[in-house]
């Protein structure tokens, strides 16, 4: 099954190697990995998606926790969450055939972010299936797609949810005072995607 791990890791050299090395050792391919700053100074947040057996989830999470620089790990699995991906797609397009692409971009609620006489760049944010839908349609014309750059998935649980680990560390910079722990443990589920 597809596992989505969301982790807070210390923002230090070599930390990603340690995370990646764990999957390498298990011979598990990482489908996507996004990393960036989090709401907490000194901590990066990553979303890692991989294919592994259902039972492997707990062990991978336990092993990630054993890494000294890993502060928190969440295995989102099938819980209610919002997942997004960003794609930049460069298309060969001349003034004569642009109009058709503008229509497509409109339909997919994407944006044009760069335009030259021979090419244009589309920015699209959404769930994986939508991005793949757009790419598929663009592929119908051979040779049209010049480059694709995808960010990989970013995932966040729905509702007011904070892990007990982060909770114990105290609030991040932009967070209100802590409500009692029990209230935080159960994330309120929003409407599904």
């Amino acid at each position, binding site marked *: 099954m597809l596992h989505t791990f969301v982790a807070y890791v210390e923002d230090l*050299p*070599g930390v990603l*190697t*340690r995370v990646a*090395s764990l999957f390498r*050792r298990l011979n598990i391919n990482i489908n996507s990995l996004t990393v960036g700053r989090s709401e907490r100074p000194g901590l990066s947040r990553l979303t890692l998606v991989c294919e592994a057996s259902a*039972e492997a989830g*707990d*062990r991978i*999470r*336990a*092993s990630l*926790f*054993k*890494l*000294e620089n890993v502060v*928190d790990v969440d295995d989102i699995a099938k819980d209610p969450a919002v997942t997004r991906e960003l794609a930049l797609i460069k298309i060969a397009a001349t003034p004569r055939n642009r109009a058709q692409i503008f229509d497509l971009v409109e339909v997919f609620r994407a944006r044009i972010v760069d335009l030259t006489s021979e090419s244009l760049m589309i920015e699209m944010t959404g769930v994986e299936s939508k991005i793949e839908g757009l790419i598929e349609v663009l592929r119908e014309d051979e040779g049209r797609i010049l480059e694709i750059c995808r960010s990989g998935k970013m995932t966040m649980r729905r509702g007011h949810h904070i892990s*007990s*680990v982060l909770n114990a560390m105290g609030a991040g910079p932009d967070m209100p005072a802590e409500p009692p722990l029990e209230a935080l443990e159960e994330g309120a589920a929003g409407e599904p995607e």
Partner: protein
Amino acid sequence: MGTNATTQAANAHLTTPARLTGAEIVWATLVGEGVTTVFGYPGGAILPVYDALRKFPIHHVLVRHEQGAAHMADGYARASGKVGVAIATSGPGATNLVTGIATAMLDSIPIVCITGNVSSKVLGTDAFQEVDITGITLPVTKHNFLISRTEDVAPALRHAFQIARSGRPGPVLVDITKDAQQATALFDFAAAKPRPYRPHPMLHVEDSGLAQAAELIRNAKRPVILAGHGIIESSAMEQVRTLAERAQIPVALTLLGLGAFPASHPLNLGMMGMHGEAWVNHAIQEADLLIACGMRFDDRVTGSLATYATKAKKIHIEVDPAEINKNIKVDVALVGDLREVLEQLLPRIPGRDGSAWLKTIDGIKGAAAVRDIKNLPDSGHLYAAHVMHDLWRITGGNAIVVTDVGQHQMWEAQYYHHEHPRTLITSGGLGTMGFALPAAIGAKFACPDKEVWVIAGDGGFQMTSAELATIVQEKIKINIAVINNGYLGMVRQWQEFFYERNYEATPMVSPDFVKLAGAHGIQGLTVRTRAEVAEAVNEARSAPGAFLINFKVEKEDSVYPMVSAGSALHEMIRRPGNDPLVESPDDK
């Protein structure tokens, strides 16, 4: 090594912040962490550290190969329960540590390895003797640090000690660039204290889990306690014993668990697994409840997983959440420090009558217990089992025995009975040949008043025999038993059983070990018959210095019983011969 005056100076550093070089900070921090002995080998990239040593009250043991330094630190840690420290230079010095680090990793041994590296300005340029040692050791350390700023030296080292000894212990490597050793920074020992230890967030022992475990134990008809190394690491010997005695549950031990439960205890079944006695493995296969304490269901103790203890419910008490359901699916997992968990569990365990099951096991034992090679009348042949048995009797079972890897290791485990924890030191997880001699040196430094015996094969002994010179230079007393069968015996045994006796690359020519010892200034003797064993052992024990005995044992002897890799635990190759032999009275 420093004098008293410098001891005072070094201690003053710990209370009054002072400006020191990175090299001085290394030693000052080690002093602060309570280190008195380190094992190492110098070289260019670690020279500043060596240069600063004279100012500090730490004894440095010069090894003959850095692998030896890591094994010594490991042996020191295993014997004492404290963190062992090894030091090496960059490049080849650092890579030579790797086998020793992996050995410590696989057996969860707390050591800290300090390596020098090239200056930070040339990191990553393939400078002379530069190697990416933090990259190389990443999968075989619990954690490692690359330090290129002097002010980070003390915090990294202190953090390294914390990591090495906390939770499930393990090795940590701290790689320090030469410029960080040379520059100065304010050394403030107290301020370099690491953040509070963060227990693994998945540790949890719920009331319901304890209740469930207690219920399983109360209702079990055929329970067995599986006792592992974790008992020693968490000092849970008393708790395990109380559990066993109160509920009358027999105890089977892993190789690294030997000593965690007294060998002479009536509930002690002995070692389980690949070379465990038949009744132990049968008891596990027949059990209706296994209570695994600080062990990880390694393949050497389970045999084939599909057929392992299929009738048994399993309770797993373990400090590492990543071990739960890894090899064997368990019914109740109590994830936490073993001693703490047992202390919570014990009040729920009432007395229990276990006599029926104990009698059944005695039945399984039957004649097998006395059909043992150690009871063979002296036929003029020398069997390794005899050597182990006699060593055990003569030393009163009180020595620290450090074994290498191979047949002799298994014979030791079968015939030297360990009453106390930390009296058997052996490489279980990695199975590292060459471990015994250096690890014994480390153990001797940890326990200078204890009798220390190395038991090594002729093959493994030659892997690190250069450390004989270290013994002499350090003037320490260690007794060495080389079990010389002329073969890489354990591999030969596999060739005999599974490769049609094709003895490819296992017959081994060795030097005259007594002369080799002599060349180092170590006394020695060769023993060829059982009649000579006791006298030689006594001579070794009473000799003032180190002593080596070259036991020329039966060449094609094999370790029995044996569960071949991947077979079910109860499918054992049994000892040949059917005649039950009578145990001689003084073997009791």
